[in-house]
């Protein structure tokens, strides 16, 4: 199936209650997403605690684009395409390092300041009179369109022009704020390497799963249900401590009613979260000394308000989620229509007791590792769906649970926790940012001329 790069062609794929399967399985739609959607949105790059000193860098991918996040001599964090302007060689390939005051390409030793500017070329007289200063190669390493460091979280928009950061995220930043405010110092630090989990499925399946509250008690019965059964069958003399697995895994087995009542909130531009009123994180045990340190930092009222929020999963469109009560961020990096690398990062709450970090690390490995029993069943569902979508049984994927006539995604809304409104919100944003730079339709006759020429 060939798609013209027009609003008309894209709009035909997104209906109010269903979306076309090509959003998940078409390599061409994936290429268009890379060129348009991921370029027009603000994507998460990394955390500035990964590059604490000048010259520190971190290499990653924004969709299909390799980039370097680096701390420049002015202490600002810059994001550059990881490509030498000369022959295309990747400038850095280790995941982290320190490059000093400049990058030096290992192929021909062209060097660049850490903001990307060309610094020096060996035997430069060979370019005298050739107009290198006018050439693209003479401009140095290309920076992404725009960078915004929000309280340590670094986001980038690849397109040079487009929606500003504050407008893109709006009030959804309250989830990030809550995660940060859980540190008495208001600061987070990345801890260790991320879990890296390869999924043979489209990235949108992972994003949708974050607010899919009708799957845990079904898909995760084998882990959460079995955990509950074992615990109930065990001899428990008084004082037997509850195993951590019960606190973390068992809540997945909560009944539908629990998820209905937890609520879902959607924000404009595809962001949203589950767990408005309570969540699977609400009943975690108290950590001695933690509340006191929060009260000392914020006063009692604000401290209680911070811990009173138990948002479950917050989706930041297009492709990350965070868990405030757990201090976790998952990055769904789209590597192809049917290939997604999931990185699960954890953070230390600066000045908070270590027990919180211990719980965060435990959650990460129990739920999101390639060795996790919960992860196994999720991935099994995504991969079966990726294969099943190729069947001719239907061309459409259904997203109509609790659909309401005339939904306005530009308005914040709080609804029943089992609604698929957040999924619909994501597809609404998908269409908006996919087509922001596309013409409404193919000009009359142009397609025909092109075909005739071919």
């Amino acid at each position, binding site marked *: 199936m060939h798609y013209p790069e027009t609003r008309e062609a894209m709009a035909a794929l997104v209906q109010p209650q269903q979306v076309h399967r090509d959003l998940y399985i078409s390599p061409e739609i994936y290429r268009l997403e890379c060129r348009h959607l991921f370029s027009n949105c603000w994507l998460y790059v990394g955390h500035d605690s990964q590059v604490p000193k000048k010259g520190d860098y971190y290499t990653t991918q924004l969709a299909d684009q390799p980039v370097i996040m680096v701390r420049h001599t002015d202490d600002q964090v810059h994001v550059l395409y990881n490509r030498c302007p000369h022959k295309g060689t990747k400038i850095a390939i280790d995941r982290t390092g320190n490059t000093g005051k400049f990058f030096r390409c290992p192929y021909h030793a062209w060097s660049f300041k850490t903001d990307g500017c060309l610094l020096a070329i060996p035997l430069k007289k060979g370019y005298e009179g050739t107009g290198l200063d006018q050439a693209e190669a003479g401009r140095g390493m290309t920076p992404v369109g725009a960078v915004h460091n929000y309280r340590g979280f670094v986001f980038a928009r690849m397109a040079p022009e487009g929606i500003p950061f504050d407008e893109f995220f709006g009030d959804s930043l309250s989830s990030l704020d809550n995660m940060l405010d859980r540190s008495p110092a208001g600061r987070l630090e990345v801890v260790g390497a991320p*879990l890296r*989990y390869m999924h043979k499925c489209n990235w949108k399946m992972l994003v949708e799963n974050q607010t899919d509250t009708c799957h845990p008690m079904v898909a995760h019965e084998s882990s959460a249900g079995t955990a509950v059964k074992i615990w109930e069958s065990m001899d428990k003399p008084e004082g037997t401590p509850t195993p951590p697995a019960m606190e973390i895994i068992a809540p997945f087995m909560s009944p539908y009613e629990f998820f209905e009542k937890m609520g879902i909130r959607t924000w404009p531009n595809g962001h949203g979260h589950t767990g408005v009123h309570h969540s699977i994180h609400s009943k975690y045990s108290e950590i001695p000394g933690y509340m006191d340190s929060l009260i000392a930092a914020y006063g009692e009222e604000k401290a209680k308000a911070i811990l009173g929020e138990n948002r479950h999963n917050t989706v930041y469109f297009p492709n990350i989620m965070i868990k405030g009560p757990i201090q976790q961020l998952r990055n769904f990096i789209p590597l192809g229509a049917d290939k997604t690398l999931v990185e699960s990062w954890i953070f230390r709450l600066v000045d908070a007791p270590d027990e919180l*970090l211990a719980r965060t690390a435990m959650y990460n*490995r129990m739920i999101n590792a390639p060795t996790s*029993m919960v992860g*196994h*069943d999720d991935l099994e569902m995504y991969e079966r769906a990726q294969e099943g979508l190729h069947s001719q049984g239907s061309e459409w994927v259904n997203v109509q649970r609790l659909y309401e006539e005339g939904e306005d995604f530009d308005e914040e809304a709080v609804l029943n926790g089992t609604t698929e409104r957040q999924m619909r919100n994501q597809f609404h944003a998908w269409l908006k940012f996919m087509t922001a730079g596309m013409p409404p339709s193919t000009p009359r006759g142009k397609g025909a001329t092109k075909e005739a020429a071919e």
Partner: protein
Amino acid sequence: MTETLTATKVAVTRDDLIDFVYAEARMLDEGRFDEWLTLWATDGMYWMPLEWNQQDPILETSLLYEDQFMLRLRVERLNGARTFSQKPKSRCLHVLNRPDVDLIDNEAGRYKVVTRMIYVETRLDEQFELAITATHDLAWQDGLKITQKRVDILNCDAAFGNIQLLP
């Protein structure tokens, strides 16, 4: 030799330790998981670090750091009727190098065995191999019991799909 026996009552030999490691691998390969659970000390931990030379299993992410409750959950889940990712079931094979016995302390009843091996896991049309180093810390508790099994994967920093059985 006879004197040592009467002095400590326990005389675990190098061969006993090597046999133990082979027997453990065979139980996993043959899916004898309930029997496998009896090899563990009640406070035994199965640790699979995420990072090369990782020292801290608590305050950093690991692939696995599981107590006996979690291991039992794992085993019962593998046998469960609604374990969708195990329909059909995976199979595995441990191909062992000769284990190195790094510690025999019969007086304290403490032992350490380090084994390099290739771990193979398969399901449907997929098969993958991991090069691993397994470090068994064993204690004498009316028989040899595992107090910690540490599994270091050579490419621990690579992205993996599902690893469903136990290396």
